[in-house]
């Protein structure tokens, strides 16, 4: 049984979002920092049976500070959570985000993380699919430059049969930036008919940018479909020339191609902006 009351909130800045059975809610949380102080945020989210939540988190600020976000999400039967996170913290910030998600039967979680800020960010997710026919999608966009580092660690547990999970990452890395993606899918012995996909694509805009991708599949059921893939590449010179030959300046043409590279990630999140 998933809880319907919050676990005690431990930090200075916390929020408890509770969507009652059958209801639907839109919630916008913005954490904008200009005080150069460290922050610890605890978010507790419960979406009950047949309820829907659309959640937007935005992080931003100035100066040097650390943000620690701890997030617990419980999705009851048939609950739906659409989750957009804009991480646009100051370039000197360290941003850590630990997310734990429990999903009951036929619930659906889909998220898009837009990761642009912080000198160092870590997004660490543990997702537990414990009710049949539940589905989770983690999409992420990294736009990094200079010496920014961003790491995503996503571990999904398929504890029961007939669940789906998706992890799609697109990284655009300039200068000396480093992106890293570790996606883990763990299918329990009971997790028959699991469908899991994982893909990381990186566009390196500079020869000194690096992307690390490490997929990990741990599968104990025999009737599953799990696949993963990774690509790294540069901007396509032929496409760039084609655009420029039509009078489009080089930097505009590059931006068009970069936008094109990440555009698919916005499916289902049409209102989201970079």
């Amino acid at each position: 049984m998933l809880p319907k009351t919050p676990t005690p909130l431990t930090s200075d800045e916390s929020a408890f979002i509770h969507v009652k059975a059958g209801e639907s809610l839109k919630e916008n949380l913005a954490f904008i920092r200009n005080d150069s102080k460290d922050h610890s945020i605890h978010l507790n989210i419960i979406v009950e049976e047949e309820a829907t939540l659309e959640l937007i988190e935005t992080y931003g600020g100035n100066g040097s500070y650390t943000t620690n976000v701890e997030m617990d999400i419980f999705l009851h039967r048939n609950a739906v959570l659409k989750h957009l996170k804009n991480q646009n913290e100051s370039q000197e910030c360290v941003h850590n985000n630990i997310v734990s998600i429990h999903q009951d039967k036929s619930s659906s979680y889909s998220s898009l993380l837009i990761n642009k800020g912080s000198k160092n960010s870590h997004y660490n997710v543990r997702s537990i699919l414990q009710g049949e026919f539940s589905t989770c999608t983690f999409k992420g966009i990294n736009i990094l430059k200079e010496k920014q580092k961003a790491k995503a660690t996503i571990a999904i547990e398929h504890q029961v049969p007939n669940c789906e999970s998706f992890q799609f990452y697109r990284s655009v890395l300039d200068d000396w930036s480093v992106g890293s993606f570790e996606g883990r899918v763990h299918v329990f012995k009971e997790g028959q008919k699991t469908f899991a996909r994982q893909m990381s694509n990186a566009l390196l805009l500079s020869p000194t940018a690096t992307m690390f991708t490490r997929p990990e599949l741990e599968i104990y059921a025999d009737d599953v479909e799990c696949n993963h893939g990774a690509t790294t590449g540069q901007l396509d010179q032929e496409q760039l020339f084609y655009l420029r030959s039509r009078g489009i300046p080089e930097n505009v043409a590059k931006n068009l191609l970069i936008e094109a590279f990440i555009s698919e990630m916005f499916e289902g999140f049409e209102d989201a902006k970079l």
Partner: protein
Amino acid sequence: MIKIKNLTVEVGDKQILNGLNLELKSGEVHAIMGPNGSGKSTLSYVLAGREGYKVTGGSIELDGINLLDLSPEERAVIGLFLAFQYPIEIPGVQMTTFLKTALNSLRKARGEKELDSLAMLKLIKEKQKLLGITDDMLKRPVNVGFSGGEKKRNEVLQMAMLEPIFSVLDETDSGLDIDALKIVAKGINTLRSPDRSFLVITHYQRLLDYIQPDVIHILSKGRIVKTGGAELALELEKNGYAEFIENVA
């Protein structure tokens, strides 16, 4: 309009153009014909400023401006356009975004007012009708999922939108059915005016029936080996390139 003098070009370590001379006056349409691998596309890419084509000698001027000093986008700004032999697919960039960005980039660079969405849409509609481009094609990403013929028509659509003063069409007629060929010819003929010129690269007499060039050149091994009138194309159609190629051997 365009003056190419003694142009020599290397690709990789291989010399492809070997002292090419060509001059087009305003309002003229010239055709270039020549066997596969003779350097026709190389010439078109050098004109458009593609990387990897090393000009080792000679000059190219468009209306007195040295093209070789300019980036591809600057060449477009002064009025050059290349219809690609193999148009490039760009997944994720919508056709309308592409057309809008291209035309407004040119207008901006020329100090003209950019068109708003409404004016742009009207212009696209007008050209689209002329060239039989479907709404569906405009909703797709640039050239993605277009048939060979649709890609070629899309090149002509871009030309019609951007209204260049000097257009190079590299085998825009290849792979077209007869109706598409007529449409493409119409696209060219509509733009034709005393202050625009066209260089049409083709393998077939067929296109020339519809657009009647003023001059025909034969390119072989990186050089123009023969220049003449419409009769040259007919002669080629009948006898092939053999006699012209022997001339230079």
